[in-house]
């Protein structure tokens, strides 16, 4: 079921410019037991300068989608079908159609990723300066050492690190928060238009996490970056997101601006998720557990994948997978019954 | 006032951290002068960021680590000075639930084997038939029905949430009085956490278990221990302690306030209005270089030079069981 992506929609979104368009993307993994359909027919537009959150649990496909968008899926994963189009630097780039070399050059220059574990991105045997310099040189052979240094210094200061000290250090000499900030700076080295962040704060302390969030807000302001933030933590979305795409079993089940998602959700899963998270400040609010567990991604149930756990499921839900429907401007939901349900009202 | 069933008195645990073969060995105090009481059917949440010593404290309470200073008292007796009989009783009555459901079950043993071992060992059952029955009973108790679907399986054939339930069943098999739960839902998917928490609460109702609930997620800690108490830990010491809602809704210690203001909440308006507390330094001290005096002083916005960096404050009673370790509240 394709998301309705007519011209009319772009006009609706005002003068919002699309920087990335994902169309009918299908991503699979070959596992021992069978084929995991990690991302199923997902279509999504990302607008310039926004912070879009992909929120979901394990198996929802959010990380897979993030990796697929840059075409850096790790080995047993592959893109089965679909198109990924970037609108950057005045050009329309279909990344999947580029050669390996062209893709390599495209990445980091226009779209970069901040990985979950900074330890994965940083080479423990190289000093930070060497890694930053290598990264810049790899994508821009002609840059002089001085220029590269200037760039590195500028970015490290932007992420509130002392350049002299940091550049000389090895990764293990830095704290977790510092490492994560280095990784963010590294991602920004070539001035990409789009930054994808995969659970960048999961391994960090609460106070450090708050720091990084504030930092990202500042960077977005300063550089006009577009960010795609992948996380399982819905509260982070409340903190930082412009728009939220809630994912479940390989599909986006609801997409809307952050206030709508939290105050006027239309999908039972979104609603249930919000109702199941312990709130710090509301003492009396009752919480409701969601029965059952996420589906087996190799043997998905028929119909709507959430129906086994949904209190509003009907026989239609068990038989037929819902279509992407428009609720209001910029608010879409994947549910047969959204009109009849009055969630939380 | 009833007697506490478990008590930690001025417990410390220091680890020797070697700097290589020839380097000097430094002492890192993972737990520093921690005291608290746990009553029957009580719930105590130990909250703090990673490295604060909450897990080590929990394992000391569970008798799995021996403290380098201080005492652990079970029913008034020091557990490290008990007779064999007394130790046996303590051991049976204090169990642990670990964070990682993938590491807390032996991958080589079936669920039956893992769950029946303590039953046989402690002579709760004598024959295989009895054991199978009892194991099935335990599985049903934690919501794994029908038991036949799980009893002969291996851990890798179960999902994370199911494994955690098995772990809970195992901890409950000896009908303990106390369970130390170390981040029991941190590695479980969000949509299933509440199920596990509710199960634990149910078992508390039914069987009168007391919990020491260790977590870095204050919201979850508040929810689980809402009827009990919360202790906030920082670099090995308790900085604030009291009835959970008091501590969370009316925090007194600057660190607690900083934490609470930094935690994102699932409510965009509320969370974006929250003012983060400005800390003096972004550096997180390591256990090897513990600041002098009050350990929070390098980052504390209320720092008073000469006082906070010189003397370590002890817990002061603010009334109603609410205690704070901070010079803002007098000597």
């Amino acid at each position, binding site marked *: 079921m394709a998301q309705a992506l007519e011209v009319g929609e772009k006009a609706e979104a005002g003068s919002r410019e699309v920087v990335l368009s994902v169309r009918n993307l299908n991503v699979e993994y070959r596992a*021992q*037991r069978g084929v995991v359909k990690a991302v199923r027919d997902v279509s999504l537009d990302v607008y310039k300068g926004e912070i879009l959150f992909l929120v979901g649990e394990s198996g929802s496909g959010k990380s897979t989608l993030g990796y697929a968008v840059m075409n850096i899926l790790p080995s047993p994963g592959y893109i089965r079908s679909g198109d990924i189009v970037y609108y950057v630097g005045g050009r329309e780039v279909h990344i999947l159609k580029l050669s390996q070399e062209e893709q390599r050059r495209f990445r980091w220059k226009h779209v970069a990723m901040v990985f979950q574990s900074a330890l994965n991105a940083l080479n423990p045997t190289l000093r930070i300066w060497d890694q930053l310099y290598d990264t810049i040189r790899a994508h821009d052979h002609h840059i002089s050492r001085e220029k590269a240094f200037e760039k590195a210094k500028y970015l490290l200061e932007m992420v509130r690190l002392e350049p002299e000290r940091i550049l000389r250090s090895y990764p293990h000499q830095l704290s977790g928060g510092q490492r994560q900030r280095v990784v963010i700076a590294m991602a920004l080295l070539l001035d990409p238009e789009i930054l994808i962040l995969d659970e960048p704060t999961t391994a960090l302390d609460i106070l450090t996490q708050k720091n990084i969030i504030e930092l990202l807000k500042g960077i977005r302001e300063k550089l006009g970056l577009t960010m795609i933030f992948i996380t399982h933590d819905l509260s982070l979305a409340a903190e930082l997101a412009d728009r939220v795409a809630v994912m479940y079993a390989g599909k986006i089940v609801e997409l809307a601006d952050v206030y709508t998602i939290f105050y006027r959700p239309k999908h039972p899963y979104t609603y249930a998720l919000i109702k199941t998270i312990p709130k710090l400040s509301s003492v009396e609010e009752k919480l409701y557990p969601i029965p059952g567990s996420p589906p087996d991604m190799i043997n998905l149930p028929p119909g709507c994948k959430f129906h086994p756990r949904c209190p509003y499921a009907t026989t239609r839900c068990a038989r037929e997978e819902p279509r992407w429907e428009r609720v209001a401007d910029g608010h879409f939901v994947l549910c047969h019954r959204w009109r009849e349900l009055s969630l939380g009202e | 006032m009833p007697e506490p069933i478990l008590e930690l008195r001025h417990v410390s645990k220091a680890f020797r951290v070697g700097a290589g073969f020839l380097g000097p060995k430094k002492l890192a105090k993972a737990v520093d002068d921690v005291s608290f009481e746990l009553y029957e059917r009580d719930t105590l949440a130990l909250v703090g960021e990673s490295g604060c010593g909450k897990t080590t404290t929990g*394992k000391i309470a*569970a*008798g*799995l680590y021996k403290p380098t200073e201080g005492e652990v008292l079970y029913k008034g007796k020091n557990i490290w000075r008990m007779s064999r009989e007394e130790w*046996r009783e303590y*051991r*049976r009555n*204090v*169990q*642990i639930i*670990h*964070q*990682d459901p993938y*590491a*807390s*079950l*032996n*991958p*080589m*043993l079936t669920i039956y*084997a*893992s769950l029946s*071992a*303590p039953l046989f*060992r*402690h002579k709760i059952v004598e024959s*295989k*038939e009895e054991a*199978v*029955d009892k194991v*099935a009973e335990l599985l049903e108790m934690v919501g794994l029905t*029908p*038991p*036949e679907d799980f*009893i*002969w399986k*291996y851990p*890798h*054939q179960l999902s994370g949430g199911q494994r955690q339930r098995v*772990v809970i069943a*195992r*901890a409950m*098999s*000896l009908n303990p009085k106390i369970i130390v739960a170390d981040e029991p839902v941190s590695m479980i998917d969000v949509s299933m956490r509440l199920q596990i928490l509710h199960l634990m609460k149910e078992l508390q109702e039914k069987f009168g278990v007391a919990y020491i609930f260790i977590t870095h997620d204050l919201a979850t800690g508040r929810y689980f221990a809402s009827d009990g108490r919360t202790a906030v830990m920082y670099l090995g010491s308790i900085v604030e302690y009291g009835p959970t809602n008091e501590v969370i809704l009316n925090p007194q210690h600057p660190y607690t306030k900083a934490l609470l203001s930094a935690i994102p909440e699932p409510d965009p308006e509320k969370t974006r209005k929250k003012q983060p507390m400005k800390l003096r330094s972004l550096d997180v001290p390591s256990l090897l270089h513990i600041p002098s005096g009050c350990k929070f002083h390098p980052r504390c916005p209320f720092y008073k030079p000469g006082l906070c960096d010189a003397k370590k404050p002890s817990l002061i009673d603010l009334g109603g069981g609410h205690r704070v370790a901070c010079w803002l509240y007098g000597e």
Partner: protein
Amino acid sequence: MSVKHRRRKSKARRALESYLIVPLKVIVRNKAGLFGFIGIIIYVLMATVGPMVVPLDNQPKPNQMYLPPSWQHPLGTDSEGRDIFSQIVHGSRDVLFVAFLAGVITVVIATLLGTVAGFKGGLVDATIMAVDDILLTIPQFPLLSVLSAVMRLDNLLLATIIGVLSWPALARAIRSQVLSVKSRDFIEAARALDLGTRHIVFVEIMPNLMSYVVVSLIFAMTGAIYAQVGLVFLGLVPFQSQNWGVMINLAWTRGAIFFKNSIWYILSPIVAIAGFQLSAIMFSRALEEIFNPRLREG
């Protein structure tokens, strides 16, 4: 209690199932393992039953020297006209006996000491590792050569010495395995449940080592074959001429590699050894699956 249907299986039936039927199923499913298993069975039969069925051809018949393979002589004849195939069959007994015995000795000592060292730690661990270090510095082959000059190394003694010299390396590896298993959460849980040291070592830790140990046995055996064959090839150990190492020695000194027909003389023992190695290694793949439930279909 509706779990009754399972209890109808008697204890014997269940034991049979888990020790025989499940392993067989795993072996059959694992192609490499099946190939290896069949190979091993062939060798075992050759060593045990073979010599009784195939008569040893010991009479030199110079006129039948270096005959190519035929129905009467499946692997041809050697430099003295004796049938090679019967020599291989008879020689297999010694080779496999020494290999198996040496392998078992190595594995038993290594597992025992490695587990005790890893589990106990402290002084016990330090002592065992010190002994281990000392033994590791002893060069196996030269020592065997010296000993063979001084005393008569029959099969039993040879196997024992090889076994005793090979355990240190394996003990080290087993010790690290034990250390890593010991630190896992389920061991801590077992301690909290007061399951006792015996249970923790034999029921919790050991099964996690089993697949490693079993595979090590296979490799210890192949190592022992090399040690043994090497010694015999160098002429350091008293031999009967159908021992494979001897065959290689004789074939080499008698120039068997130079003629098209005689090449069978030198190739046969080499292929026999290599064949056993290959079967053993492929079989170890199935063994891993048998001992580690996680590697099975899942």
